[in-house]
């Protein structure tokens, strides 16, 4: 019943305490209600009295009336007042002390967090029976007088400032305080009238004001500081122990009759709180780590650690992902190897071989290749007489031995069973002999060397790749040729090998001999520049010469240009040869100049020389300057077919050469296909009419007619003319009769070595001196 009354009384707000029965606070807002209530009250009183009596007899400890007081407190000041995170109840030093005092006085207290900005405002709120804490009695916000209880405890107040800031005297201090400490602020003003107090809603704002020097220090309850300064962000704030004073900690309410009665009774309870009890409560709260880190605090404290942890995790993830990918790659590679590689021998599988050969042919269209298809004829016999393991061992030995002789541009494959195929670069005889000694002999004698009588019989078919095979790559077709040849060898009960296309083999070998030996030939003087004199048939005078080259090949003997020029062009090496000849010619011309004989020499230029962005006209100019020659001493011969095949590039180079002062000749005119269109476009100085077409079959008279008209035409075009390939007196006199007197040919002079040429052209040391 009693509780029921209290509950109701709590629900009813703004009720004046009753003088006649001050122990019971019944709140009632309207006077009207009060009248009604009086009757009820009388009834209640009677009931209460009965209960009171009964309880007095039953439980002496509860003899005192148990009224509940609603106490409004600010909860922004842990550990004095704060809301427990778990129970949501208001607790703290102040709360415990108040509870102890109220208990002594026979009250029950219920704390409520004040919502008002200041305690002064809270005083005016009738929802609270009491408000605390106050240092002294202050008037309420509405201007009503208040009364306060006796001191519950002496609260130490401490000044906190930033770092080692030097503070002015207390009386001239600018101090920041929490708005909720309004009562305290008033007390401070009373104590230190000179102090300038600024109020801030939160501790954060207080600290901000301190940091921006709006205030010199912050003032608060020491117990609160002990809590607040646990915040990592405030670690730079320091307590000023010297500037400390204490304030009372009292309970207040409006100065009414009811209020006075409660305070009076409460004072008795306060007096009953022992110092020991007080100290115990204070110690209980101040010794606890009450501050709870929020996320910002956490970041501040553990930020670096956290960052490192994040980085570590990220690094681990990256490593794991990479490892996983590497593993995947390895797996894929293993799979590819399984598909592309033969398990027994480690050679390529047919599948892998096909791919590898295609890639090699595509990458090296200029390398002469052969493909060989090999078969161990008596493997069946070996397997039966020596066991399967012996056969496998033999195949492994073969692949291993042959593998060592392969270059990166070659490939090996186990086609099936006892068949192996090889893609090899065609080289000289040496390589074949080496293979024979290093691979095939040990293979044949594999078992003999190990004490058995069985000789391994090998049959092989070889196919030499043709230019068409490079353009239209078909590995199976290529291999089929070799396979067919091998079959032929095997069926004639022969060992050894046969070549499918021996002509191609000879050509391939020749290419290898020519291309492979060029660098050595250039260095070792195998290549010589010879000169074929050019003559004015009218006077018999030598008017110049064409530089030709002769190759005294170490293995093939003397080679004529027609035997190696085309090969070098195909292999992309003609420039090396041409540049070598140009240099030699310039060196000879310089020597002859010094000996007093200024000659003009024609040198050949291939259209391939202009490829790869080479500035050939510039190179000629450089040569001339380096050897102290004049530009009219060099004639650059470019074949008619070059002009036909790549007119734009050649005409550009021709114009440039002529611009520099060189004479340009169209070589081999009439020997191949001509383009009449081109003849009118090309700006050459001289045309070299090739007479070779005259000597072929057919009507010589018609040839002569054509030659006379060509001579006429060339002269009419204003181009000089020289006839080359003049082979007999009849041709020479015919040409002279048609007005062409400049000639070159066997009839006049064969190509001569430098020595012979110098003798013929009357160049000698004597003339020079």
């Amino acid at each position, binding site marked *: 019943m009693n509780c029921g009354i209290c509950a109701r009384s709590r629900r009813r707000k703004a009720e004046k305490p009753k003088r006649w029965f001050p122990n019971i606070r019944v709140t009632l807002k309207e006077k009207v209600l009060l009248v009604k209530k009086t009757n009820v009250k009388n009834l209640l009183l009677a009931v209460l009295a009965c209960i009171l009596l009964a309880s007095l007899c039953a439980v002496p400890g509860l003899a005192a009336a148990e009224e509940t007081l609603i106490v409004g407190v600010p909860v922004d000041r842990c550990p004095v007042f704060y809301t427990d995170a778990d129970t949501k109840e208001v607790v703290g030093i102040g709360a415990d002390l108040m509870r102890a005092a109220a208990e002594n006085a026979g009250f029950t207290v219920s704390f409520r967090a004040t919502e008002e900005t200041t305690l002064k405002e809270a005083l005016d709120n009738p929802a609270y029976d009491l408000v605390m804490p106050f240092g002294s009695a202050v008037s309420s916000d509405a201007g009503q007088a208040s009364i306060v209880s006796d001191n519950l405890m002496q609260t130490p107040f401490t000044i906190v400032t930033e770092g080692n800031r030097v503070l002015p005297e207390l009386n001239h201090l600018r101090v920041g305080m929490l708005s909720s400490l309004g009562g305290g602020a008033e007390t401070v003003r009373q104590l230190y009238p000179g102090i300038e107090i600024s109020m801030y809603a939160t501790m954060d704002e207080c600290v901000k004001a301190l940091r921006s020097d709006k205030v010199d220090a912050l003032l608060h309850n020491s117990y609160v500081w002990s809590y607040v300064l646990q915040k990592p962000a405030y670690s730079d704030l320091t307590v000023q122990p010297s500037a400390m004073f204490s304030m009372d900690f009292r309970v207040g309410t409006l100065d009414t009759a009811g209020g006075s009665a409660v305070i009076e009774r409460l004072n008795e309870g306060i007096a009953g709180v022992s110092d020991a009890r007080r100290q115990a409560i204070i110690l209980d709260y101040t010794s606890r780590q009450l501050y709870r880190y929020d996320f910002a605090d956490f970041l501040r404290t553990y930020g670096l650690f956290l960052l490192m942890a994040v980085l570590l995790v990220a690094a681990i993830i990256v490593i794991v992902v990479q490892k996983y990918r590497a593993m995947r790659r390895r797996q894929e590679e293993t799979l590819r190897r399984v598909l592309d590689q033969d398990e027994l021998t480690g050679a390529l599988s047919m599948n892998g071989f096909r791919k590898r050969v295609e890639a090699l042919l595509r990458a090296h269209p200029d390398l002469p290749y052969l493909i060989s298809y090999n078969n161990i004829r008596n493997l069946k016999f070996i397997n039966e007489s020596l066991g399967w393991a012996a056969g496998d061992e033999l195949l492994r030995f073969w692949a291993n031995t042959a593998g060592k002789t392969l270059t990166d541009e070659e490939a090996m494959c186990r086609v099936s069973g006892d068949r192996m195929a090889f893609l090899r670069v065609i080289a000289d005889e040496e390589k074949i002999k080496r293979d024979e000694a290093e691979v095939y002999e040990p293979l044949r004698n594999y078992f003999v060397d190990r004490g058995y009588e069985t000789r391994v019989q090998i049959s092989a078919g070889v196919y030499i790749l043709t230019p068409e095979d490079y353009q239209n790559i078909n590995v199976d077709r290529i291999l089929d040729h070799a396979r067919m040849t091998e079959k032929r060898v095997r069926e004639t009960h022969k060992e050894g090998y046969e070549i499918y296309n021996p002509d191609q083999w000879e050509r391939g070998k020749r290419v290898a001999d020519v291309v492979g030996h060029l660098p050595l030939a250039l260095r070792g003087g195998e290549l010589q520049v010879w000169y074929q004199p050019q003559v004015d048939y009218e006077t018999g005078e030598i008017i110049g010469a064409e530089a030709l080259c002769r190759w005294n090949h170490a293995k093939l003997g003397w080679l004529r240009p027609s035997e190696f020029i085309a090969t070098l062009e195909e292999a992309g090496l003609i420039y090396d040869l041409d540049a070598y000849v140009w240099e030699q010619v310039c060196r000879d011309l310089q020597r002859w100049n010094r000996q007093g004989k200024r000659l003009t020499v024609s040198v050949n230029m291939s259209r391939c020389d202009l490829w790869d962005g080479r500035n050939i006209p510039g190179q000629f100019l450089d040569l001339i300057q380096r050897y102290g020659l004049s530009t009219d001493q060099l004639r650059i011969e470019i074949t008619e077919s070059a002009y036909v095949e790549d007119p734009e590039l050649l005409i550009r180079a021709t114009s440039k050469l002529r611009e520099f002062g060189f004479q340009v000749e169209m070589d081999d005119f009439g020997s191949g*296909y001509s*383009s009449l269109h081109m*003849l*009118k476009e090309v700006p050459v100085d001289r045309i070299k009419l090739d007479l070779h*077409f005259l000597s072929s079959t*057919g009507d010589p008279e018609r040839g002569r*007619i054509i030659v006379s008209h060509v001579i006429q*035409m060339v002269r*009419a075009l204003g181009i000089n003319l020289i006839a080359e390939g003049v082979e007999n007196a009849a041709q020479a006199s015919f040409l002279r009769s048609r007005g062409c007197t400049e000639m070159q040919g066997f009839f006049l002079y064969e190509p001569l070595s430098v020595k012979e040429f110098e003798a013929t052209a009357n160049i000698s040391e004597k003339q020079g001196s």
Partner: protein
Amino acid sequence: MFAKDLYTLDVYQVLTGLIARYGVPAERLRVEITETALLEDPANSNAVISRLRQRGFLVEIDDFGKGFSSLSTLKDIHADVLKIDMSLLNEIETRQRSRTILASIINMARSLGMGVVTEGIETKSQLQSLAAMGCEIFQGYYFSRPITVEEFELRYLRPEPQKES
């Protein structure tokens, strides 16, 4: 007649068969062989041409100067007429060089005993300069575009019966 005709058909058989069937004398049919065809296989071409000429056909080298030419082909092929391609003419008025070359070719052909037809005549000045070089037979849009049989008959064959009537 193109290159492939020379090799895949027995040209001689076909042509003699045709003149026999329609009772046309061989000399009324001129056989044009492109220069390209001749270059591909001069020996075989020459054999075919000799037989056709012995039988009485007139053989013309077509498209001369259009692509590549070979002096040795010109020497070895015995044709009756050299048809010089019009593309050589294109610059004839502006370029002295073209003129020179063309004149030489015409002279050369005549010296080799061949008649010369220039095809592709488009303007009067082309006609005049070519005539000055000694060319006598012409063909081209300047005279007429290729026309249908009916049109051809109407334009070139009708007047004769009119005269007779």
